[in-house]
């Protein structure tokens, strides 16, 4: 039976390396890093977003918007604007919102607890509705009058990839015609960062703090936290054609699988299953893939496991496919990472240009693929790209995108 094809008709991004898609992709290609020391915690680097909230929202609205909801709304608006959907085309029960976040309104929660434990002991009455994990999806639905499902997926670092994948399935299976899908994260708050530091998985500041995140490198020291959001307008190809819209790319496949092995330690078993499932879903062979946007967090444990997984899936041709981790520049956006990195993959196939893995001078001997070190690579024939997102908890999600023709 012929399946409904799912087109991507709009993209939006908010990140440390650009708050528009062209800026974001130019930073990736030119190797501009958004990583710097946190102003309030000098021993920690992060990829924080330059953000002046009053330039995006009236003051009266900001009372109801945690930073993660602000990022989500701005990214979603960019995607809607690019798709050219009218308000009437969005405001129907045939449109849904599918969004991911790891920690929801973490900054509001953090400051709320700080206030609660202070002598005054007061907590703002908006704490509950600002921090709830589904606040971002709810605000997108409210803003655009979207009457179909408004769903939130919280699967740690795979949240956004799963949200996009589930939206893809909902369109393909005919439950909705249009979806705003993506992820948002904004957890650079003192208590949360202390938790990450306590876990000892963060890279310490490098001599040049901007180069602290070093995926696949021999001298990598850990991940670097990021923040931001990315959003997509996904649409059944029939709906897009009927309204004479323009597809940017095709979302061709989604695979999801669990390690069932450990709460935090990555495992090749689930990663291989997810990549194979996504390829099968897209009805593609490994040889069809011309670029892999790796999960590549730059932790000592994670990068060799992902390398081994790619080798299992791609076999003898694993070294022929360019693999890069763009986290070196935008950091690890956790619950938004799958969305931000899918923007990178979509732009790579659209522009025929593979973004590099920056800060990679000498690869770990256990990491022996083609990581496109430091310099972007023209790839005019690039047709399909695969993006990996692997989560704490052991959930692995893989998405496949292709050019429109």
């Amino acid at each position, binding site marked *: 039976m012929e399946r409904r094809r799912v087109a991507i008709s709009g993209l939006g991004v908010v990140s440390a390396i650009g708050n528009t898609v062209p800026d974001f992709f130019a930073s990736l290609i030119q190797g501009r890093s958004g990583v710097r020391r946190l102003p309030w915690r000098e021993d920690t680097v992060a990829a924080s977003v330059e953000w002046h909230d009053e330039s995006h929202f009236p003051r*009266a609205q900001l009372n109801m918007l945690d930073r993660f909801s602000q990022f989500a709304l701005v990214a979603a608006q960019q995607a809607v604007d690019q798709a050219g959907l009218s308000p009437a085309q969005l405001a129907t029960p045939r449109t849904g919102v599918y969004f991911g976040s790891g920690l929801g309104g973490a900054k509001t929660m953090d400051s709320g607890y700080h206030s609660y434990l202070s002598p005054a002991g007061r907590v703002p009455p908006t704490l509950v509705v600002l921090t709830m994990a589904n606040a971002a999806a709810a605000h997108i639905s409210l803003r655009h009058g979207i009457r179909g499902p408004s769903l939130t997926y919280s699967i740690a670092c795979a949240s956004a990839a799963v949200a996009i994948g589930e939206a893809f399935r909902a369109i393909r299976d005919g439950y909705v015609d249009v979806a705003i899908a993506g992820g948002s994260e904004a957890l650079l708050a003192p208590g949360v960062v202390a938790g990450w530091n306590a876990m000892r998985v963060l890279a310490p500041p490098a001599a040049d703090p901007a180069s602290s995140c070093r995926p696949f490198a021999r001298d990598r020291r850990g991940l670097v936290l990021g923040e931001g959001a990315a959003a997509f307008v996904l649409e059944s190809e029939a709906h897009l054609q009927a309204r004479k819209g323009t597809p940017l790319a095709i979302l061709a496949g989604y695979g999801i699988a669990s390690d069932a092995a450990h709460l935090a330690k990555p495992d090749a078993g689930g990663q291989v299953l997810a990549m194979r499932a996504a390829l099968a879903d897209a009805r593609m062979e490994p040889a069809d893939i011309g670029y892999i946007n790796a999960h590549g967090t730059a932790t000592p444990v994670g990068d060799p496991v992902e390398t081994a997984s790619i080798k299992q899936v791609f076999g003898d041709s694993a070294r022929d496919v360019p693999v890069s981790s763009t986290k070196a520049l935008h950091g690890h956006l956790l619950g938004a990472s799958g969305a931000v990195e899918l923007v990178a993959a979509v732009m790579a196939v659209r522009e025929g240009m593979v973004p590099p893995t920056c800060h990679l001078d000498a690869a770990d001997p256990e990491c022996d693929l083609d990581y496109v070190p430091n310099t972007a690579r023209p790839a005019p024939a690039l047709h399909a790209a695969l993006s990996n997102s692997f989560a704490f908890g052991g959930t692995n999600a893989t998405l496949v995108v292709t050019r429109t023709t």
Partner: protein
Amino acid sequence: MDQTVEAMRRVAERKYGISAAQLAPDNDLATLGFDSLAFVEYAFELEGELGVVLPDLPRDLKTVGDLARFVAAEVARKQAEPAAD
């Protein structure tokens, strides 16, 4: 009372971008964009500004003036209390 109104204006401007002119006593709170949650939040901010703890807000507060009189009465009640030592 004047002190209370001044505090209400400061908070309204700072938190909501509502100008002092819009806070005329006869203006309906609902027309300023205060739904029930925003109203509770406004009261929370006023507590911080005035250093008082307000009881639950009566449901019949309709206008800016109603709220100002209610808050001012609570401020006066607090000031009349013997200082704790």
